[in-house]
């Protein structure tokens, strides 16, 4: 019979103690301890926890263009105007740093000027770049400095290429600086004239009502010259200072308190913040009970935002389930775990109080058809047939879990001129598609000499998903009896082909609104916007379209403008320079202690409106994360059994 050998106590006790002590000190909480637990008034210090996919590439207001950067910059660097958090259909702006909306004045030379007045008493964040480390008051000179920076080639502002066509002097100053090698900030800028400590004028060479949207973007957000001079990335006796692009000094409700690259960013409330308050109106009646108590309250509503950088999606789902994330976007990896086949939240999560949200981005995705191609360009019926053969709903069901909305028109929901009930006459209808193909001169997909029509489909096949999508799209078109040759390209090669016009059908094209105006979508088909300088990849050229577009582009929203938008939409629908696929929508989830307040897709995060019930969160976290100790016993038992076998073997030998 096997006798369990005795393990000496002097050996066992220290090891067991070490394991127990180590386990006692451990928890699965992924965050460092809070730097403070309560506010000055004794109430709890409220911290929201969120996720982001990578470090911001630049937080320089004149440069930042990507959604990750904007998510961090938005709460730090305020703009002159901002999007109303609740008014999204159509989208509306409201003054932020400005005391009111700019006053538009027509100039005798055909130009336009906008008179703007800043709110008084707005303070920059306290920062070592200011004398004594105390943030100074915002003035109109800071707006001038921001506009000058846009024209500085070293800054690399992406806004320049558009704004230089309208704001006087921007283009000239950029060229001069490029030639001389440096930008002269002492010289005035004709497009932005400071008229007082808090007042300035923006001078445009031609009407451009979209300027107001640009004033709601960080490109035109005021910048303190002291901050740019101080944070220049060079050593100053106290080590190298971070570059300004990583150390924005704004006037927003939060400032960046800590940024560990590849790890997390911690935003802490700016105690002197008073630019905006919670809106008094603008929400649906159904949300009155939730939002009325917040109306008029000082912002922000939480004290700290901790954004963790996740490059993989699986850990996001894990932390959300443990209650360590207050919300998450619902990607493909977690979809089947969280959703039922009927696209509802799984009962397990509903019981936990998790809420599901569906947001549609102001974006449209499509396949571009080359209007200069000898086969496609001259044959409208053929393009219509191709469009009618593509089953966009099936495409979205298979590849996007039916989350996005099939696009019927170029404009996405929320943009002035979007027609809710419009149905694309060349949407999926296979019989109609075959009839159109016959009318186009290719009955059953064959030309007059009996040869099968062959069309090239260029796609950016960057992964397995994209390859499957291309295969699906090919099969859809081939239902017509034609042959589709799929060409897989790298992203850059596809861009080159679009620039050169060397394609027939190009997949994966799309446009997300820079600002919610129909001009920002229809300009994609304006004939003066041919690549490489412009974005009219289809090379659509229609003098009537151009005429209506030029008229619509410079108008304010009105019934007359809407009728022009309808005309533009009708022309594109008939001419089919693209095959529409979807308006991108996303599911996201929020925990019961962090209900969704605003859902404006033009805002990146909207952290200043975020709320939190920290008591409920603490309670749920404790409940969901109790450690199980029995596996430790099992491990210890296995080790002891192994030792016993060894001791027995030694005795035998």
């Amino acid at each position, binding site marked *: 019979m096997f006798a369990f050998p005795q393990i000496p106590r002097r050996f066992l006790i220290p090891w067991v103690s070490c394991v127990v002590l180590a386990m006692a000190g*451990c928890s699965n909480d992924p965050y*460092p301890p809070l730097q403070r637990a309560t506010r000055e008034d004794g109430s709890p210090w409220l911290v929201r926890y969120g996720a982001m996919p990578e*470090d911001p590439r630049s937080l320089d207001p004149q440069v930042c263009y990507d959604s990750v950067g904007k998510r961090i910059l938005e709460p730090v660097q305020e703009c002159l105007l901002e999007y109303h958090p609740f008014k999204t259909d159509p989208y509306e702006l409201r003054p932020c740093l400005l005391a009111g909306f700019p006053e538009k004045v027509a100039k005798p030379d055909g130009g336009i000027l906008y008179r703007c007045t800043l709110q008084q008493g707005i303070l920059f964040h306290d920062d070592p770049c200011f004398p004594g480390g105390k943030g100074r008051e915002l003035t109109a000179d800071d707006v001038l400095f921001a506009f000058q920076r846009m024209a500085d080639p070293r800054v690399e502002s992406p806004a320049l290429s558009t704004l230089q066509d309208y704001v006087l002097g921007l283009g000239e100053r950029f060229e001069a600086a490029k030639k001389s090698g440096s930008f002269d900030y002492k010289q005035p800028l004709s497009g932005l004239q400071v008229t007082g400590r808090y007042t300035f004028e923006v001078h445009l060479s031609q009407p451009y009502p979209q300027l107001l949207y640009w004033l709601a973007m960080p490109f035109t957000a005021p910048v303190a010259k002291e901050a740019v001079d101080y944070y220049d990335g060079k050593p100053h006796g106290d080590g190298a200072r971070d570059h300004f*692009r990583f150390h924005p000094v704004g006037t927003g409700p939060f400032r960046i308190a800590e940024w560990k690259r590849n790890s997390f960013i911690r935003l802490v409330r700016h105690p002197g913040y008073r630019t905006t308050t919670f809106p008094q109106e603008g929400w649906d009646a159904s949300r009155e009970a939730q939002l009325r108590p917040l109306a008029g309250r000082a912002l922000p509503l939480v004290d700290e935002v901790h954004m*963790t950088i996740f490059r993989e999606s699986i850990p996001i789902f894990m932390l959300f389930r443990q209650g360590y994330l207050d919300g998450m976007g619902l990607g493909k990896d977690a979809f089947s775990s969280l959703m039922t086949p009927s696209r509802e939240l799984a009962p397990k999560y509903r019981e936990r109080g998790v809420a599901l949200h569906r947001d549609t981005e102001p974006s449209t995705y499509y396949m571009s058809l080359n209007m200069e191609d000898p086969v496609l360009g001259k044959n409208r019926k053929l393009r219509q047939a191709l469009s009618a053969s593509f089953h966009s709903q099936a495409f979205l069901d298979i590849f996007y879990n039916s989350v996005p909305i099939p696009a019927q028109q170029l404009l996405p929901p929320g943009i002035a001129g979007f027609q809710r009930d419009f149905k694309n006459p060349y949407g999926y209808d296979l019989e109609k598609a075959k009839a159109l193909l016959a009318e186009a001169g290719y009955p059953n997909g064959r030309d007059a000499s009996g040869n099968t029509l062959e069309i090239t489909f260029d796609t950016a096949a960057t992964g397995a998903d994209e390859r499957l999508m291309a295969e699906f799209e090919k099969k859809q078109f081939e239902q017509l009896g034609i042959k589709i040759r799929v060409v897989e390209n790298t992203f850059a090669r596809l861009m080159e082909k679009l620039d050169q016009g060397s394609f027939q059908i190009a997949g994966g094209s799309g446009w997300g609104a820079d600002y919610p105006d129909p001009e920002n979508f229809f300009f994609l088909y304006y004939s003066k916007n041919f690549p490489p300088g412009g974005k009219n990849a289809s090379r659509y050229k229609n003098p009537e379209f151009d005429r209506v577009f030029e008229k619509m582009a410079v108008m304010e929203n009105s019934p007359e403008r809407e009728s022009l938008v309808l005309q533009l939409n009708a022309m594109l629908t008939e001419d089919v320079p693209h095959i529409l696929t979807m308006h991108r929508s996303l599911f996201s989830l929020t925990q019961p202690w962090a209900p969704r307040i605003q859902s404006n897709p033009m805002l990146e995060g909207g952290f200043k409106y975020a709320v939190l019930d920290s008591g409920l969160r603490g309670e749920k976290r404790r409940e969901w994360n109790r450690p*199980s100790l029995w596996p430790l016993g099992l491990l210890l038992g296995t080790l002891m059994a192994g030792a016993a*076998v060894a001791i027995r073997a030694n005795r035998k030998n």
Partner: protein
Amino acid sequence: MFSYIIRRLLFSLPIVFGVMLITFFLFFVVQSPNAMARRVLGPKASPQAVETWLHNRGYDKPLLVNTRPGEPFYDSLFFRQMRRLAAFDLGNSDVTGRPLKQVFASGALPSLLVTFPAFVAGMCFSLGLALYLVFVRNSAVDLVAALLCVGLMSMPVMVYIIFGQYLVAQVLNYFPAFGFHLQGWSTLKFLLLPVALMVVSGLGADVRLFRALFLEEMGQDYIRTARAKGVSNARVLLVHVLKNGLINLITLVVASLPFLIMGSLVLENFFGIPGLGNVLFSAIQAPDFAVVQASVFLGSLLYLGGLLLTDLCYAWADPRIRLQ
């Protein structure tokens, strides 16, 4: 010995140059600087923005040899970058503009905090288990261990990570599933799970290898002599077999030491450890040629350093080997 080291260092120069040339070609054959700028700036970037981006980073220069009239032939992208690297100036990131010295310096410690303990613990566990299996060789335990080791060897690292995160962090709630914060002893709770997973994922292969090496030693004459002299089993294994078996492991161990600094790409990504593996991963995705090039440069130097160190250690451990 000294002249040997000098000679090896001189031989390293053309190797590093060759590696850099191949990296340069591979990167720019896949995509031109123009395409890289388009990817970094996004599909909405204007030609003017692309041109400015390229100019500010020197990518508007000819790639390899400058054939423009009036300009020296060496005023090209490749030679400029080689000149800079020769002076150990890693430059700045193409995407963020951050000095790469700073990027690598801040990433090295988190990487080492995971890889070094994992390496040491992995060696200790593997050696210990291998010795144990030699001790209980040809028993049922040995057979079960062989099956387990083959099983461990068959699974990809990703499976260990996802399963480990799920079991230890999600079901048992012992350690965080994600995150890394350098804060004294509490840093340990962020390291234990990734280190344990790294150890376990390498255990199967190492134990089998070490077991085979030790068994070979067990058949040597000096072991038979020791046994004949009445030396205990434990002493034979822990003193004689272990010591002589370790000489064979030098090649394996020393060459991999410098690589610990470069971190583990997959593990760091899944656990959010801000190490150099993470830096390289994001640089490849971006794409950030400056970071990729500097990583390859440092990696090749570390590799060559590791090889040299292996030879030196071998000569030190085995008196029969002389370096000339």
